[in-house]
């Protein structure tokens, strides 16, 4: 919306170009007039001086003729000079229109970083300023759009990756059950429980994908108990294939607001990475402790030696990082030769007294 000051400024600037052109007209006219008079006088003096020096015999009428001739030439010279000066000076001002048109063309080609140089203080300058502002606004809007699109894709990638984890677990357990010849009732029951649990997890993650990744925070009086349960689930995923060394003694009692699904996703991703990349012949260590006032989870393992290079997509770690950032925490990865370690500073501890 235009303010009163903008309107006054706009009115002033709308008169500037016409004032400028009028000024240039006046200046060109003045210079031409002065030149006409000077050229006329000097030419007359020149003629008289020449006649005197060369001792030419010319009559009064011839002299008048010469003087009128000089007057005529001076007049024509004045007009020619006026045209040259006025057209050059005004043409230069109006040539700025070409620059503004260039800028508008660049806007049409989506070259948002093109800036029209600002010259003078008239309507054309205002126009150039507005075009530049429009260009910047459009660039910012496009950048925001790109960021939103990136965030959306990142959310989809992250949640899709996290949905795959329980699905993989269900599939590998189904494969195991299929290959077994005689299934006991307890095994079938355990399998059904796992399927139900993982299905619930998939459902929650799918719901989250559909509602744009909103969080469901709940207050937990006993945060340590929650962590123990999550660690139990993590170890249940891996204990059949890996030797696990878990240490929770250093973890203090604490409370806080957490989204259980997010924490579950963290541990699922940790378990998934262990299954994909850890060496099963050596133990996997998981520690939970207080560090720098944060609940800290440290997982370390030896990496598999593989015949062909398996590229990690890092989606799992990025997913963990995004979740931890929402709690104000941080993730630190260290990889030395065959050892991989991930330190997750989850959230600031509010100790239970």
């Amino acid at each position: 919306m235009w303010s009163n000051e903008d309107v006054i400024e706009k009115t002033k600037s709308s008169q500037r170009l016409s004032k400028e052109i009028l000024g240039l007209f006046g200046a060109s006219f003045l210079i031409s007039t002065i030149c006409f008079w000077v050229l006329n006088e000097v030419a007359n003096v020149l003629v008289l001086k020449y006649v005197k020096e060369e001792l030419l015999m010319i009559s009064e009428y011839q002299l008048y003729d010469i003087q009128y001739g000089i007057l005529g030439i001076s007049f024509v010279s004045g007009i020619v000079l006026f045209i040259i000066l006025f057209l050059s000076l005004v043409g230069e001002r109006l040539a700025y229109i070409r620059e503004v048109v260039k800028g508008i063309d660049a806007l049409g080609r989506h070259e948002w970083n093109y800036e029209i140089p600002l010259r003078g203080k008239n309507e054309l300058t205002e126009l150039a300023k507005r075009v530049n502002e429009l260009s910047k606004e459009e660039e910012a809007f496009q950048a925001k759009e790109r960021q939103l699109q990136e965030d959306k894709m990142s959310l989809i990638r992250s949640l899709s990756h996290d949905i795959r984890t329980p699905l993989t677990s269900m599939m590998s357990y189904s494969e195991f059950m299929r290959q077994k010849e005689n299934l006991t009732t307890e095994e079938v029951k355990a399998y059904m429980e796992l399927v139900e649990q993982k299905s619930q997890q998939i459902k929650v993650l799918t719901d989250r994908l559909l509602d744009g990744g909103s969080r469901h925070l709940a207050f937990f009086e006993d945060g340590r108990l929650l962590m123990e349960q999550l660690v139990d689930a993590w170890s249940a995923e891996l204990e059949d294939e890996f030797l696990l060394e878990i240490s929770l003694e250093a973890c203090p009692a604490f409370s806080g607001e957490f989204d259980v699904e997010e924490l579950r996703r963290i541990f699922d991703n940790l378990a998934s990475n262990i299954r994909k990349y850890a060496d099963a012949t050596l133990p996997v260590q998981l520690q939970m402790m207080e560090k720098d006032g944060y609940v800290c989870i440290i997982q370390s393992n030896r990496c598999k030696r593989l015949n062909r290079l398996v590229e990690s997509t890092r989606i799992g770690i990025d997913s963990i990082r995004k979740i931890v950032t929402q709690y104000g925490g941080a993730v630190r990865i260290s990889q030395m030769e065959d050892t991989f370690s991930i330190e997750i500073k989850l959230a600031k501890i509010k100790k239970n007294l």
Partner: protein
Amino acid sequence: MLELFMDPLGLLVITFFVMGIISVAALVLVHFLKNEKIKKGLLYFLSVWGVIIAYCGVRSTPLYMMDQILITVAIGALSVIAFLLQKFSKKENKFQIARALVSVSVVAGMIDCFMI
């Protein structure tokens, strides 16, 4: 009247007017235009023009008036100095100085060539 202008006097007057218009137009534009490239071009043109005016002045002066010839040459030299200053100097205000020198050279050259 036309016959009068076909003889040396007439040619002198026409030459004066043509040189006057070119000098005034170029001097005004080099001072008032805002485009730096055009101003530089005009400055180089005026440097050459100043030398041409000085040449005309030297040619129109009898040889026995050596002091007059020297003054005309000095006036022309101002244009050359202006050209060299603009081309090779690293001073920040070299354009303003060169423009002043070339203006003096052209105006003084015209006065010297036609009036003295």
